[in-house]
């Protein structure tokens, strides 16, 4: 029988006696005892004991606590510190290893923590951040990677506002290149020279309100309201209008003289830690209609939609309510277009609300074509930080206890001359805190030295937050806490040595302590092995990705930007540079297998009235040749065949999706009918980590970019010749070029970064 011993709990009583001021002890202890006796008689000892403990804890107040002698007197501390320094100097190599290991661990942790902090600080700057959401569309009829996406019909924002009182504000953006987002050429209306700019999006006037973008010059409420207005960032205002007032000035985009844009506001630069960054130009969506009826058309999804909800609105309830959109709008429009199985498709649809803070890190599985961090990677790094810290501490513990033989005699002597165990513990803890503090200083210095290199590796602009109010206190506290944790075991272990054993030469190395040390060593090695294996696996994966066959040849291709300024003469220009000896082939087209070029997702109707989704790319005759793609079935476009104006080449992914034994001669319809004449080998046009999605190529103009494949690796010479030709055709247009392989590499910067962070 496990009957609790009679009487009040001993530990609570001892605790009371320990902390309580002697003048008050008799009264308090007496009263609590008396209460205990009364309660025991009334309720039995179990409950009385519980109440006793509670009374003791409640009596633990500032006013009852005795004046403790300082845990350690200043004199003692001075001596301890001096001894600690002597010890450290006595064994320089040992100290170096101990300190160095600790410092390295701390530096690594500091850097990784900064990285984690940076990754988790995206989109935290909104005042109403807890009420801001991005709309998500779910549709199980779509291919896997599109099942969750952020693309919505134009009239959705308005419908949300009208039909759901919880929605306080809604705004759309159109970031894609199709309607003028992404990259464009830009010039002042009063100047001739064009510049290449990448940060365009089309936006509703309400976006400024919803995403809390402050207008620093101009009217916050009126900017973007009028058609053909544009808001530019402060940095671009400085660049284009140094020393001038940009308000009311006109800008020409892509040399479209008939549609000049008036600057109606200058916005504060979008913070780097916004999922939208880097955006410098907001082109108004007001008065925009890309084709007749586009703004009320429910069957094209080209807009991201953000909403701000009323305070206290439940997202769960709203998500359920949003389903009514399907019956009200989506389904009628599908039926009106005669979509087969419209009901089935409607049943597969639903909507979600993604908190704005989650966009950067938690968009796994959401198709939004934006760069993202990965919450799993951040968590992994967090775990690694803890492991590294544990390793550093264990290393410290092992080194300290391993040296115990040397300190044993010291401990013995001290005990003989009357040192108490508490004082010894204090001495050893002082030593470890000192080491940890020094290591911390070293670690911070090391981290600040490594930071530039780390920033380059990780493509971040991290800085040590010296001036943040929390940095120094947290660092100091961290140093002390780590020192105490790391020093606790060695201190307790060393201070248990019995003087008599030590002085006789028997070191009391009990079986217990050595098994703990063995366990620590095993843990240490296991963790190291896991980290190393993990690094190797990551490294191999990256190597795999980078060396994987791309399905196109990225080498020796120059891309000329802003070719639309050539206008009608683009054909002549193409012929002219094709004659250059260094040029193998030339293709005019904006749809390239690298990020930041045109994309256009389409639905196609197939023979049997089923629907498939695929990219619809407008290319020219030389496209496949220039990009080194391979026709695996059928044939390439040909100038001899006049029927090729309705011809289409699909990639293998599309062929798989269609599922025909032989896709040649079949038709796809997205308005007009397209005859499939060939199948091109799958090429990676999105990140290599994603599966290759279906693509269809047809012969049509897309005049912003020209790709030039060189016949020899004489790129400098080629660029010179191209520029000469270019400036003969369009003397006022900046000659802007990039290399395909560089653009390709920049797509995988995050891959390199991940690898770099792991390797470091």
């Amino acid at each position: 029988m496990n009957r609790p011993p009679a009487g009040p709990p001993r530990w609570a009583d001892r605790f009371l006696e320990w902390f309580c001021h002697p003048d008050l002890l008799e009264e308090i202890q007496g009263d609590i005892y008396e209460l205990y006796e009364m309660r025991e008689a009334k309720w039995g000892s179990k409950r009385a004991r519980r109440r006793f403990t509670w009374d003791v804890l409640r009596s633990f107040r500032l006013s009852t606590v005795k004046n403790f002698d300082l845990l350690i007197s200043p004199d003692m501390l001075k001596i301890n510190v001096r001894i600690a320094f002597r010890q450290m100097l006595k064994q320089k190599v040992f100290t170096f290893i101990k300190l160095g290991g600790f410092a390295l661990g701390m530096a690594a942790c500091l850097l990784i923590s900064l990285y984690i902090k940076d990754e988790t600080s995206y989109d935290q700057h909104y005042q109403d951040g807890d009420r801001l959401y991005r709309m998500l569309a779910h549709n199980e009829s779509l291919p896997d990677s599109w099942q969750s996406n952020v693309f919505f019909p134009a009239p959705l924002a308005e419908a949300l506002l009208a039909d759901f009182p919880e929605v306080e504000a809604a705004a759309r953006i159109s970031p894609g290149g199709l309607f003028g987002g992404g990259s464009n050429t830009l010039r002042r209306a009063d100047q001739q020279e064009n510049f290449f700019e990448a940060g365009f999006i089309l936006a509703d006037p309400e976006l400024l309100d919803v995403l809390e973008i402050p207008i620093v010059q101009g009217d916050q409420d009126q900017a973007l309201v009028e058609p053909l207005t544009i808001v530019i960032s402060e940095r671009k205002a400085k660049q284009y209008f140094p020393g001038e007032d940009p308000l009311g000035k006109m800008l020409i985009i892509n040399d479209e003289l008939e549609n000049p844009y008036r600057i109606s506001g200058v916005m504060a630069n979008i913070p780097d830690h916004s999922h939208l960054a880097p955006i410098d130009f907001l082109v108004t969506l007001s008065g925009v209609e890309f084709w007749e009826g586009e703004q009320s058309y429910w069957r094209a999804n080209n807009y991201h939609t953000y909403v701000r909800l009323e305070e206290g609105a439940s997202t769960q309830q709203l998500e359920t309510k949003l389903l009514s959109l399907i019956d009200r709008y989506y389904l009628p429009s599908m039926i009106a277009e005669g979509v087969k199985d419209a009901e089935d498709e409607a049943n597969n649809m639903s909507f979600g609300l993604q908190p704005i803070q989650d966009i950067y890190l938690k968009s796994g599985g959401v198709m939004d074509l934006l760069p993202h961090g990965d919450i799993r990677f951040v968590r992994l790094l967090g775990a690694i930080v803890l492991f590294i810290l544990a390793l550093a501490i264990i290393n410290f513990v092992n080194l300290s206890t391993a040296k115990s033989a040397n300190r044993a005699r010291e401990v013995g002597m001290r005990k003989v001359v009357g040192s108490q165990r508490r004082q010894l513990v204090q001495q050893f803890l002082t030593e470890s805190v000192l080491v940890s503090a020094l290591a911390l200083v070293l670690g911070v210095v090391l981290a600040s030295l490594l930071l530039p290199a780390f920033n380059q590796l990780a493509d971040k602009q991290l800085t040590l937050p010296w001036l943040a109010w929390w940095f120094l206190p947290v660092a100091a506290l961290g140093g002390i806490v780590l020192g105490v944790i790391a020093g606790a075991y060695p201190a307790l272990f060393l201070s248990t040595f019995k003087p008599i054993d030590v002085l006789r030469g028997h070191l009391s190395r009990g079986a217990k302590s050595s098994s703990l040390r063995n366990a620590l060593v095993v843990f240490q090695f296991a963790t190291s092995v896991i980290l190393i294996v993990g690094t190797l696996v990551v490294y191999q994966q990256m190597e795999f990705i980078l060396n994987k066959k791309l399905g196109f040849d990225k080498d020796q291709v120059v891309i000329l930007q802003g070719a639309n300024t050539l206008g009608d003469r683009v054909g002549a220009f193409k012929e002219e540079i094709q004659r250059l000896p260094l040029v193998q082939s030339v293709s005019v087209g904006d749809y390239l297998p690298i990020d930041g070029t045109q994309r256009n997702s389409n639905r196609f109707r197939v023979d049997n009235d089923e629907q498939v989704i695929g990219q619809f790319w407008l290319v020219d005759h030389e496209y496949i040749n220039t990009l080194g793609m391979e026709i695996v079935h059928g044939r390439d476009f040909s100038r001899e065949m006049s029927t090729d104006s309705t011809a289409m080449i699909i990639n293998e992914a599309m062929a798989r999706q269609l599922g025909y034994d032989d896709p040649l001669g079949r038709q796809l319809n997205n308005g007009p009918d397209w005859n499939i004449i060939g199948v091109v080998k799958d090429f990676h046009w999105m990140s290599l980590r994603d599966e290759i999605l279906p693509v269809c190529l047809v012969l049509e103009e897309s005049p912003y970019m020209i790709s030039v494949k060189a016949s020899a690796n004489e790129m400098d010479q080629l660029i010179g010749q191209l520029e000469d030709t270019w400036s003969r055709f369009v003397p006022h247009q900046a000659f802007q070029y990039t290399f395909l392989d560089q653009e390709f590499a920049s797509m995988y910067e995050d891959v390199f970064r991940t690898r770099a962070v792991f390797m470091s």
Partner: protein
Amino acid sequence: MGRKYLGEFEELVLLFVAVQAGQAYGISVMEALETEAGRSVNISAVHAALRRLEKKGFVRSDWSEATSSRGGRRKRLFTITQEGEAALVEIRTIRNQLWGRLPNLGTNLSFS
């Protein structure tokens, strides 16, 4: 030191000390608080209030004889001082004046 004020809880404790006329100690006050004022408090709260009252000079304390209960520990018995009585009287005077000026007392006075 400026004027000494009595908190609401302190005033109640002081009243019980006065009522119990020399026999008041932690537990007796705690029990009185529970049975007569309907307030269930922890013993430590009573101790704290008594300490504050003693510091302010409203009560003084003496040790009782040791008995066999309480593990042989003595009780600290509290008595109200003249200063304490004066403080209680002052509070009562002020209250009486104010209560006398309340119209319609007891009919539609509501505390909310």
